[in-house]
């Protein structure tokens, strides 16, 4: 009996599923504080800087939660950057600074986002197009659509809407609460709902899921819709920060590749079936810590880029290097 309960305990720890990326997160955080203390101004632990560090990761964090869904489903979404742009532009275009139009604008951008997610999902599941190509193509379509329709910042969001980006509830910025909310809901759906279980299954093995009676196409399409929804939320956050939307806000933020990098650094495999939101948030925070530290020590932007690339490779390699099979 004792052995059973012991192993039970071990399994509980394993089941509590603290992703290994948190070890990296702690190392990076401690390392950043030390480096900042030596080379920078030693301010990394001050409240406003820490708060700002999280605010920095809100836009990426939200869309990365959605990217986690598609990647658990063994898919990928390269169109999120342009979805963010579409949302930002459309929202400010519809609102035109009028507080009464906020609701209709939000409804419209969510509908558009869901439509784009649906199209992504349909192309991948029904037309059997590789998700990389499918979402790359949809991204190009959106880019064309955006640039053909809007070449500038268009419209504006009303000041009230900017609460989303700049407001605070007590000492905590609204944006952080929003990220927290998206992450919690995202994690909850994955871990606690049937849909989450099904998505892990579809990503782990589409064949198994199909034979278990799942409508795998629907599960995957749903994942793409969820991803699109997070891109829309992210876009709304960005437009509230920028006051107005322009076609380049998404691609300029590199939200497509960075969200994928954050998800993978967070421990979700490109091949799908495992991982989770908790890991992704850690991945996003790692980037934010590095960004803040680089800023604090006045690191050259080019060197920053160099190190960011190297860190992505090393972080992922730290999970993968023991693997014995072939990887492409």
């Amino acid at each position, binding site marked *: 009996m004792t052995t059973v309960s012991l192993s039970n305990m071990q399994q509980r720890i394993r089941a509590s599923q603290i992703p290994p990326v948190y070890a990296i997160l702690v190392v990076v955080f401690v390392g950043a504080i030390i480096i900042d203390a030596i080379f920078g101004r030693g301010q990394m632990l001050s409240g406003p800087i820490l708060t700002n560090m999280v605010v920095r990761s809100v836009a990426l964090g939200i869309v990365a939660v959605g990217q986690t869904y598609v990647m658990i489903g063994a898919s990928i979404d390269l169109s999120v950057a342009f979805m963010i742009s579409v949302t930002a532009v459309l929202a400010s275009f519809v609102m035109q600074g009028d507080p009464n139009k906020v609701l209709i604008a939000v409804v419209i951008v969510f509908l558009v986002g869901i439509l784009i997610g649906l199209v992504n999902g349909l*192309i991948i599941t029904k*037309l*059997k*197009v*590789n998700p*990389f*190509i*499918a979402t*790359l*193509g*949809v*991204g*190009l*379509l959106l*880019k*064309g*659509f*955006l*640039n*053909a329709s809007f070449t500038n910042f268009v419209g504006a969001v009303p000041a009230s809407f900017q609460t989303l980006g700049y407001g605070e509830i007590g000492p905590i910025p609204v944006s952080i609460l929003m990220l927290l909310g998206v992450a919690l809901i995202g994690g909850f759906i994955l871990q606690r709902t049937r849909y989450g279980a099904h998505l892990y299954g579809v990503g782990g093995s589409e064949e198994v899921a199909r034979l278990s009676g799942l409508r795998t196409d629907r599960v995957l399409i749903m994942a793409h819709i969820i991803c699109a929804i997070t891109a829309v939320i992210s876009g709304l956050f960005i437009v509230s920060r920028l006051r107005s939307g322009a076609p380049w806000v998404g691609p300029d933020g590199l939200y497509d*590749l960075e969200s*994928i*990098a954050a998800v*993978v650094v967070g421990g979700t495999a*490109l*091949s799908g079936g495992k991982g989770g939101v908790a890991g992704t948030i850690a991945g996003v925070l790692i980037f934010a810590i590095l960004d803040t530290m680089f800023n604090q020590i006045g690191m*050259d*932007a*080019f*060197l*920053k*880029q*160099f*190190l*960011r*690339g*190297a860190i*992505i*490779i090393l972080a*992922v*390699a730290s999970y*993968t*290097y*023991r*693997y014995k*099979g*072939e*990887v*492409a």
Partner: protein
Amino acid sequence: MSELTTTNNGPSTWQRFAARARSVNPIYVIMILLLLGVGYLNPRFLEVNGFLAFLRRAAPIMILTAGQLYVLVSGGFDLSVGSIVTLVVIGGALMIDNDPANTWWVILVLLAGGVVVGLVNGFIVAYLKVPSLIATLGMLLVLRGAGLYWSGGAPRGYLTDNFRIFGRGNIENLPLVDKFPYAVIVLAIVGILATYLFHRMVYGRQLLALGDNPRAAKLSGVRTNRVRILAFVISAVSAVIAGILLGGFSGVNIEAGTGLELQAISAAVLGGAVLLGGSGSVPAAMAGALALELLFALLNLLGLPKPLRDAVQGLIIISAVAYAALGTRRSK
């Protein structure tokens, strides 16, 4: 091909012709149709000189696509090629340091650098087991950062004329054509070498096997790491060559390679390459790249604005892959 059948009546000539016609990669048809379309709007494209000038412009992306194909067939992606192109242009200018005498060793150094980058990419994928999408994405950032850091953000030094001749110059006063771009000669050499290595040499077959079933390839004696790393090296070297041509064509520029990686992947896919490996053709991939360039030229001649070109590109690559995917399912 009847040695295996027990009942062999020998297909008629017509059947053979039909079978062969069906087996022709549709990208060639698309390419020719696009060429005719472009030629109709601007007959200069159908003249030898006009076409050669167009080929010169398309040469870098075609070479890049040929290299990318190797990695795609192995089952991976190489997203770092755009950064390599940029680094070649910036680094070339820095090292040449305005002295034409430096050009030759600089070109050798650049090619060697390409080999190194390819080796590193390949090593990260083959030994550290990092999926190539992530490994080369990381490398993209590393190289872009390195190039800009090296140059301090702005290229220093010119690309000398003897460096630029490959991308820009012509052999003058030839019979038939009054000028023949060096870039087209480079393109032809690279194209033939890449095609020969892939389709006529042992390496190509091992690469296809590796992309098709890596585990089986290993157990059949394919030295998978070596074959995989070589694919990344070929891709990186092709990017260096493309960079030399592009730098020659357009001069020093820090934006030289931006976005080329996705264009090369799209082009290879248009040419029938299957993502995640096991199938592809070098000439078809290069035709895909040319078709894409022709498409842009066509849209431009039609006076369509640039944004629409993005949209059309997106639409076409989705349709091409969907067509191929649905086609193979039907034949099963």
